[in-house]
C-alpha cells in the first residue's frame, strides 16, 4: 500500500537511475531512523507528562538532567549526523560528473527559457525543444544554462536537480536504467508560468536513439497542400520559431519535429488530434502570459492551415 503510493511519473521514490536510486535509499533509511527518534521523544514527553510525579531533590534532578542531556541531546544527534555524513558524502561524490575511465559521455545542452526548454545535441547538431531523448544505460552529461532568469533542471526519477543560471554552464550527470518516458519539470520559480515548464524525457535503446538523431538531420520536405501555410508561417511565426530549412528564429522553441513531440506548450497540452489547432487559437488562455502573441490578426483558416502543416512535422 505504502509502496503503491510511491509511484507516479515524477516521483522521487520510483527511481530508474543510479542518482535517484541513491537518494531514494537515503530517504527510506532516514525515514525509518528519524521516525523511531520522533516516536521515542514524543512518548518520553507523554510519559513524563502523565505519569505519577515522583519527588527528586536538587541533586537527583541534576543527575537525571545530565544523563538525559548527554544521552539524548548530545550522543543521539551526534552519532546520527556522523553516520549520515559518512553515507551522504560518498553518495554525493558519485553523483558528480567525474571523468570516466572510458570515452567521455554524450553531451547534451539544455537551456532554460521562460517557459520552455531548448535542447541541443552538439555532436550531431540536432535541435529540439521541450523534450529530451536519451540513450538508455549510458551516462549522459547535460550542460545546463539559462537564457533569461534562473531555472532548475529536474527529472526526479533519474536524479536530483541543478540550477540553470544566466552566465554559467553547469554540468549534470544522469543515467536512465530503463527505456521509457520520464517527466521533468522546472524546479526553480521562474515567473508566472513556472507550473507549465515540463520536460518530456524519453530513454531509448541505443539503436533507436541513433535512429532518432539521424531522422532529425534530414530537412523536412513540404507537401504541396501545405505551401500556403508555409508562406504564412515564414514571415510571421518564423521570426521567433525555427523550422529546419524554412525559418531561422531563435527566440521561441524550434518546431522542426514538433509533430513528433508528446505535448505542446511545455506540458500544457497533450499532443492529440486537434491539439495544435487548439493551442494556436487559445494558447494565451491555456498558458497565460506565455511569450507568444495572440494570433487574432491571422484569419482563422490560415491559422488552421498552419496547425495542419505543423502536425505533419514528424521526421
Amino acid at each position: 500500500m505504502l509502496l503503491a503510493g510511491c509511484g507516479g511519473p515524477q516521483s522521487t521514490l520510483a527511481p530508474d537511475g543510479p542518482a535517484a536510486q541513491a537518494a531514494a535509499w537515503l530517504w527510506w533509511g532516514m525515514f525509518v531512523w528519524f521516525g523511531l527518534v520522533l516516536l521515542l521523544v514524543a512518548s518520553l514527553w507523554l510519559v513524563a507528562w502523565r505519569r505519577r510525579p515522583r519527588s527528586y531533590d536538587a541533586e537527583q534532578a541534576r543527575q537525571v538532567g545530565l544523563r538525559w542531556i548527554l544521552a539524548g541531546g548530545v550522543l543521539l544527534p551526534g552519532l546520527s549526523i556522523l553516520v549520515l555524513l559518512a553515507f551522504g558524502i560518498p553518495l554525493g561524490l558519485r553523483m558528480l560528473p567525474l571523468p570516466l575511465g572510458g570515452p567521455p559521455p554524450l553531451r547534451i545542452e539544455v537551456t532554460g527559457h521562460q517557459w520552455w526548454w531548448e535542447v541541443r545535441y552538439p555532436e550531431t547538431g540536432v535541435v529540439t525543444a521541450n523534450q529530451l531523448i536519451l540513450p538508455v544505460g549510458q551516462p549522459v552529461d547535460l550542460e545546463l544554462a539559462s537564457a533569461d532568469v534562473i531555472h532548475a533542471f529536474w527529472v526526479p526519477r533519474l536524479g536530483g536537480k541543478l540550477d540553470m543560471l544566466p552566465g554559467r554552464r553547469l554540468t549534470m550527470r544522469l543515467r536512465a536504467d530503463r527505456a521509457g518516458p520520464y517527466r521533468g519539470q522546472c524546479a526553480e520559480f521562474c515567473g508566472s508560468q513556472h507550473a507549465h515548464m515540463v520536460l518530456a524525457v524519453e530513454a531509448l535503446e541505443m539503436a533507436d536513439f541513433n535512429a532518432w538523431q539521424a531522422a532529425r538531420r534530414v530537412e523536412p520536405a513540404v507537401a504541396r497542400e501545405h505551401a500556403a501555410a508555409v508562406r504564412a508561417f515564414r514571415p510571421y511565426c518564423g521570426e521567433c520559431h525555427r523550422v529546419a530549412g524554412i525559418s531561422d528564429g531563435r527566440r521561441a522553441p524550434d518546431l522542426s519535429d514538433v509533430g513528433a513531440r508528446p505535448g505542446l506548450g511545455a506540458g500544457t497540452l497533450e499532443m492529440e488530434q486537434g491539439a495544435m489547432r487548439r493551442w494556436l487559437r487559445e494558447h494565451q488562455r491555456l498558458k497565460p502570459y506565455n511569450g507568444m502573441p495572440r494570433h487574432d490578426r491571422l484569419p482563422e483558416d490560415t491559422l488552421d492551415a498552419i496547425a495542419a502543416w505543423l502536425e505533419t512535422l514528424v521526421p
Partner: protein
Amino acid sequence: MRPGHPLQLALGLIVWSLWLVAVYAGLSLGCLSVRPDAGLGVGSWLNELLGLLTLLTAAWLFGCAWRLWRTPPPVLAARRFVVRVGAWVHLLAAVATLFVGLPIMALPPCL
C-alpha cells in the same frame, strides 16, 4: 582575555565562525587559482592546507576549553558561571570545527 570575562561566552564560537569563513573563502580562492581540471583529488595540497587550518583551530579551541576548565573557580558566582559555560562553548566550537571539517578528508576540493 581573562577567564572570567563575559566575552568568553562567545569567543570560541567567534573563532569557529572565522574559521568557517576562512576555509570557505580559502576553498574558493584555491580553486580559482588552479582550474578544476588540474586534477586536484582528495589529499591535494588544498585539502592539506584546509585540513591543517582545521586541526590548528580545533587544537587551539580545545586548549582554551582546557585552560578554562582548569581555572580555579572565581569567588564571584557570575564569573564562575562564565568560566564554566565559556569552557563548554570552546569545547562546542572545537567539536564543531572538527565535524564541519570532516569532509576535507573525503572530498576533492574543486568539483
